[in-house]
C-alpha cells in the first residue's frame, strides 16, 4: 500500500490565500501611511527610537520658540541701551560745552537743564518694558526699575533686584536673558544717574565740570561694555537657531531611517504578493476538478 496523501487539497490553497492576503494588507498599509512601522509590534526597537526622536523634535520646536521670544527681549534691551549710549554721548557733549570757561552762567544754566532732561530721558529708557516686564529690573520685573527719589544722591532709587533669568535654548544649553539695572546702569562704581546729576550740578555751578565729564565718560565706557553682553547673546541665539534647524532635518532623516518606508521595497512587496496570489488562484483552479469517477462513468 502506498503512502496516503491528504485528499483535501483546498485547505492548503485557503491557508496560502490567507497568508497572501495578510502580506498584501501589510505592504499596502506601509504604502498608505508611508511608514514601515505602524504599530509598536512591527518593530519595537524602532518604535522606541521614534518616540525619542519625536520627543527631541518637539523639544527642538520649543527651543526655537524660546529663541524667538528671548531674541525679542534681547533686541529691545540692546536697542534701548543704544539709545542710552546716544543720550550719554549727548550729555558728554553738553558737559564739554559747559566746561568751556568762556560761556556765560546763563548758558551753563541752560546746558544744565538740558543735561537734566537727558537724565530724565535715560530714566524713562531704564524703565523700558518688554511684554509688560521691566527689562532692567533684574527679575523683580513687575514694577519700574527706577523711581525718582529726591532723597537719593543720584535722584533715583533702584527698585529691582540682582536676579537674572536663564532660558533653555538647546538640550542642556541655557542662556542668560537679562542684566540687572544695578549692574549695567547703577553699579556702585559706575552710576549713570549719579554721574548725570553731578554733571548737571557742576554745569550749574561751573565748578568741577571737567571731573564730572570724566566721571560720565567712565560711566559711558561701562554702559558700552555692558551692552556687548546683549550682542553676544543675540549672536549665540542665531547660531543655536541654525543648529536647531540642522538638528531637525537630521531628526527627520533619522525618523525616516527608523520607521519610514523603503518605497521601492514596498512596491516590490505589493507586486510580489499580487503575483503570488494569481499563482495560488491558478493552482487552486486547476487541482482536482477531475477524479477517478469521471473516467469510470465513461466506460460503464
Amino acid at each position: 500500500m502506498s503512502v496516503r496523501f491528504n485528499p483535501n487539497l483546498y485547505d492548503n490553497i485557503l491557508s496560502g490565500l490567507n497568508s497572501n492576503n495578510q502580506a498584501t494588507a501589510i505592504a499596502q498599509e506601509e504604502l498608505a501611511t508611508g511608514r514601515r512601522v505602524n504599530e509598536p509590534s512591527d518593530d519595537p526597537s524602532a518604535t522606541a527610537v521614534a518616540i525619542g526622536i519625536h520627543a527631541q523634535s518637539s523639544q527642538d520646536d520649543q527651543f526655537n520658540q524660546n529663541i524667538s521670544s528671548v531674541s525679542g527681549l534681547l533686541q529691545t534691551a540692546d536697542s534701548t541701551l543704544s539709545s542710552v549710549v546716544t543720550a550719554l554721548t549727548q550729555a558728554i557733549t553738553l558737559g564739554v560745552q559747559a566746561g568751556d570757561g568762556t560761556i556765560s552762567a546763563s548758558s551753563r544754566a541752560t546746558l544744565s537743564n538740558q543735561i537734566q532732561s537727558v537724565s530724565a530721558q535715560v530714566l524713562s529708557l531704564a524703565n523700558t518694558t518688554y511684554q509688560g516686564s521691566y527689562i532692567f529690573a533684574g527679575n523683580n520685573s513687575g514694577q519700574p526699575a527706577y523711581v525718582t527719589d529726591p532723597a537719593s544722591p543720584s535722584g533715583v532709587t533702584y527698585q529691582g533686584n540682582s536676579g537674572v533669568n536663564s532660558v533653555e535654548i538647546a538640550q542642556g544649553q541655557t542662556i542668560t536673558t537679562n542684566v540687572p539695572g544695578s549692574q549695567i546702569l547703577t553699579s556702585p562704581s559706575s552710576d549713570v544717574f549719579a554721574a548725570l546729576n553731578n554733571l548737571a550740578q557742576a554745569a550749574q555751578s561751573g565748578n568741577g565740570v571737567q571731573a564730572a565729564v570724566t566721571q560720565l565718560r567712565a560711566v559711558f565706557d561701562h554702559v558700552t561694555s555692558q551692552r556687548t553682553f546683549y550682542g553676544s547673546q543675540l549672536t549665540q541665539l542665531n547660531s543655536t537657531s541654525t543648529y536647531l534647524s540642522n538638528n531637525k532635518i537630521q531628526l527627520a532623516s533619522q525618523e525616516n531611517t527608523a520607521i519610514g518606508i523603503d518605497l521601492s521595497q514596498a512596491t516590490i512587496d505589493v507586486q510580489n504578493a499580487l503575483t503570488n496570489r494569481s499563482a495560488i488562484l491558478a493552482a487552486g483552479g486547476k487541482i482536482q476538478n477531475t477524479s477517478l469517477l469521471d473516467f469510470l462513468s465513461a466506460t460503464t
Partner: protein
Amino acid sequence: MGSLSGSMSIALSALANNQEALDVTSNNIANQNTPGYSRQRVNFSESATLQLGSIQLGTGSRIDNIESVRDQVLDFRLNAETQTQSALDSYLGPLQQVQASFNEAAGTGLQSSISGFFNSFSQLSTDPSSVPLRQSVLTAGQNLAGAFNSAATNLNTLQASTDQQIPTLAQQVNTLTQSVAQLNLQISQSQSSGQNTGTLEDQRNQLIQKLSQLINISQIQGSDGSIGLSTALGAALVVGGQQFNLQVATNPTTGQNEILSSTGKDLTASINGGSIGGLLRVRDQAIPSLLSKLDTLASGIAHAVNTQQAAGFDLNGAVGQNFFTVPPGVPGTAQSISVNLTDPTQVAASQNGSSGDNANALALSQLQNQNITGGDTPLNFYSNTVAQLGSDIQQATTQSAAQDIVVQQLQTQRDSVSGVSLDEEAANLVQFQRAYQAAARIVNVVDTLTQTAINLGVGGT
C-alpha cells in the same frame, strides 16, 4: 463434495457483503465534507472452512467489522496544539487593541502629551509673569492627566470585557464535557456489545477539539473506549461517563472571575491553554503590567512636579501648591491623576519670590531630563514600556504563525489518514460493484444448474 445449495449460499453472502461494502463506500462519499468524519473501511475475512475428508471447502466470506480509520495519537496531538494556538490567538486579539492606543509611530500617543507638558514650562520660562503662558501650562497639565486617564480607562475597560467572557466560556466547557461524558458512556456500552462506534468517536473527537479551543486539557484513553479529560492542576473534567463541572466565582478582592475545579480548587493561575488561557493571560498579566508601568510614569511625573512646585513661589509670592492630585500609593495613579491647580497664577515659576523670576519654571521644564520615573527619564521609561509591549506582541505573533503551521500540518496528517479520497472510493465502488455482479452471476448459474438438475429424467426439452 460441494453442493449447488452451498454455492448458492456462498453467492448470497457475497451479495450481502458487497452490498454492505457499497453502503460504506456510499456513506464515505456522502460524508466527504463532514467536519471530523473519519473514513470507514469494511474488513472482510474468510468464513470457516468445511472439512470433507481430505478436502477443505471454503464457505465464502464474512464481514468482521466496519472500522473508522483514525490515528488516536495524531488526534491527541492535534488537540494539544490547538490549545496553544487558540490561547495565542485570544491573547493577541485584545493586545492588538491595546497597541492601537500606543500609536507612537504616527506621533499621536502619550509622548506628545508628556513633551507638551514639559515644553509648556520651558515656554513659560521666557516670560514667567505672563498669565496666558501660565494658562498654557495648566492646559498642558490637564492634557497630560487626561491622556493618562484615558489610557488607563482603555486598559481597565479591556480588562473588564476580557473578564466578562470568562463565565460564558467556562459554561461552554461544561456543556462540552457533559456531551463527552455521555458519548463515553454510549461508546463503552456499544463496544462491549461489539457494535461499531466510529461515528460516536468522530463526534467525541469533534467535541474534544472544540474543548481544546477553550481550555488546556489532557486526554487519557480508557480501556473501555472512553476518553478521560482533565485540565490544569490535574482537575478532572470527565472520567468515563461522569462529568465534573468547572465553577466560576468572583474574587472578593479583585472583583474578577475565578475558575474553580468541581472540588473548589482555584485553577485560574494555572489555566494556560485555549481561549480561556489566552484571555486570562491578557487579564492577569499583560494589562496589569502595562497599567503598573503607566502608574509608575504618572506617579513619578506628578511627585517630581509637585516637589518642584513646593520649591518655588507662585505669581502672588505664595509657596507653590501641588500641581497634580494623585492617590497616596502608586497603583491607580494613571487612572485618577488630575490637576490640582485651579488658577494660572498658582504655577510656581519663581524661585526667589519675584514675579519675574523664571528659575523654578526652568527647573520644572528640566525635570523631563531627570530620572524621575522608575530610575529613568519619563520619555525613556515610556519608550521602553511601548517597546516592551511591541516586542511581547511581536513574539506572540511569531509564535502564533508558527503554531498555525503546526496545527495545519497535523490537520493535513490527520486528513491523510482519515480523510475521504474520491479516487479511493471510486476504485472501491468499482471493485464492490464487480464483485456484486460476479456473485449475482453465480446465483444465475446455480439457478440454471438447479433447473437442469430438476429437469433430469424429464423428457428432453
